[in-house]
């Protein structure tokens, strides 16, 4: 595709790059400023808002991490995100395989119900969710939060995985069956290795919204020691209002895992984002 004749286009290349770099600067500058300012002191920022962090200082990180409890928030966030994404991926893998291979109207209807979840604003049902978790003693517990995120991840994960299972050739399964393998064995040893790329997409792509979410913990978590990073940030912004350097450090800490995952898994992110196209 890239080997196109671009004779007409060639001489305009330079201004194309100018425009693209200009927008790139516009898109990235606020995030850069966030990182740069997190390495300065608040006093320095007040004197010169546009200054550079020279010499850089890590003081604000120390303060955010220890005094402002970002260490606790960070561990909670990692635990909640990893566990819930794994849980929703596992249950979605099983369901998606059944959707792709079972032939009955019942499963088609069930899949349609799951898919409707892609468009439903589920967060509006937060009151019943709260009461439900409360009745099970799961308010202010990470377990409750994990279960909610896992359930919310099912529509997208099933959607992607079912499409991959459907595209997998059935010959392998038939061969395995003739060799006497049962459905569980076939699923584990034949199908799972085939859909590995889709599993990567689902994991990476669900990681982002769960890590970023703050609505559910804002309501479901009452105990400060159970806060995840986003909801921790809201109280932190109230307490450290004028301590700009620490605020910038907190925001950077919340963003680093995303940047890391994005740089490692750009391909999966792009696949996940453009998957919506075939809906």
């Amino acid at each position, binding site marked *: 595709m890239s080997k*196109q*004749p*671009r004779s*007409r286009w060639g001489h305009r290349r330079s201004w*194309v790059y100018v425009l693209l770099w200009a927008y790139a600067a516009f*898109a*990235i500058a*606020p995030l850069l400023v966030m990182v740069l*300012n997190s390495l300065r002191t*608040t006093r320095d*920022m007040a004197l010169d*808002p*546009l200054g550079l962090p020279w010499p850089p200082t890590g003081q604000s990180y120390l303060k955010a991490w220890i005094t402002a409890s970002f260490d606790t928030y960070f561990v909670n966030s990692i635990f909640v995100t990893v566990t819930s994404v794994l849980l929703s991926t596992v*249950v*979605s893998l*099983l369901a998606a*395989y*059944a959707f792709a*291979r*079972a*032939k009955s109207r019942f*499963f088609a209807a069930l899949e349609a119900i*799951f898919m409707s979840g892609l468009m*439903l*604003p589920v*967060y*509006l*049902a*937060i*009151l*019943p*969710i709260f009461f*439900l978790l409360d009745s099970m003693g799961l308010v202010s517990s990470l377990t409750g939060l994990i*279960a909610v995120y896992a359930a*919310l991840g099912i529509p997208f994960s099933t959607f992607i995985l079912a*499409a991959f299972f*459907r595209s997998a050739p*059935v010959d392998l*399964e*038939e061969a395995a*069956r003739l060799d006497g393998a049962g459905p569980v064995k076939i699923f584990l040893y034949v199908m799972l290795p085939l859909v590995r790329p889709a599993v990567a997409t689902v994991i990476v792509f669900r990681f982002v919204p769960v*890590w*970023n*979410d*703050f609505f559910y913990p804002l309501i479901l978590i009452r105990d400060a020691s159970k806060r995840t990073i*986003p909801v921790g*940030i*809201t109280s932190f912004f109230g307490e450290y209002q004028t301590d*700009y350097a620490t*605020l910038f450090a907190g925001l950077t800490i919340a963003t680093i895992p995303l940047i890391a995952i*994005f740089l490692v898994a*750009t391909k999966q*992110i*792009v696949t996940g*984002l*453009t998957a*919506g*196209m*075939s*809906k």
Partner: protein
Amino acid sequence: MSHRRQSKRRPRSSGAALPTRTALLFVAPATALFAVLVLYPLATALSYSFFSWRGIVRDSWAGFDNYVALFTQLPYRNDLPRAFWHNLMLFAGAMVFQNTVGLGLAQLLHRLPRFKRLFQTIYTMPYLVSPLVIGYLWSLLLSPLFGSVNAMFKAVGLDSWALPWLGDPKTAIWAIVFINSWQWIGFPVLLYGAAMGGITDDLEEAAALDGASAWQRFTRITFPLLTPAIGTVTVLTFIGAMEAFAIPYAIGGSQGNPAKATDVLSLLFYRTAFQSGSTNSNGISSAVAMLLFLFIFGVAVVMTRLMRRWERRLT
């Protein structure tokens, strides 16, 4: 992208059916989780809105009283239309930005010989960062004292632009519209790019040979073939704009400061449910939730239908 091709192979899978009993076992965990934590709460939320409440105790059947209260009682009577209007502004702003700047960037990136991935990565980065972080970050950047934005305006001689953008009720919502569009744009750029990649080169080449200018090729070939992508992005933009919560929360708090100038429907819902102090807060807030729910889901379904019909007419 790829499933469109894959789904055509679906009949082939008919050979390897899974026994129904095994299939039921396979779907059981996901179904249980989804039913208990998504379907049941959604259905219950609807029923909540038809009762009056005393705190957390469900009282008597109220019919549509809670809904009527939303349109006749203060503060809901004032808050609801204002918040709704702000959501519409978020939607309109994002639409304008992504279908001008976003579409332009996607077109420039299309067939870029080098650095395409790099640009895509940079443009998508703000979209992946938590909207809450983005909201707080911009509230710092736009701060009148320390903020880099006003410092920059002053540095280039635009002193009259160095305003308290988020403190003035007249400009605060526009700032949020801008921040929201800025964060969201990576998504349309990626999707439009993917759709452009799906258009065969032959068409454009043939048109170029026939002497069509770049602009003509864009308006007559690329743009019409992009309508499905634009439709999909429009539906998702609509849903995102109607559900907006984190950016306004970070900037104006749950009260939509200053003077409710940044209030949106989700904030109104949150405030009514958890901060109103009214004994019937569950009833009223559930009515808000249901109206918003029906509006989002209804419009999304209608838009998707219209899109499909339009696509069929094009092909």
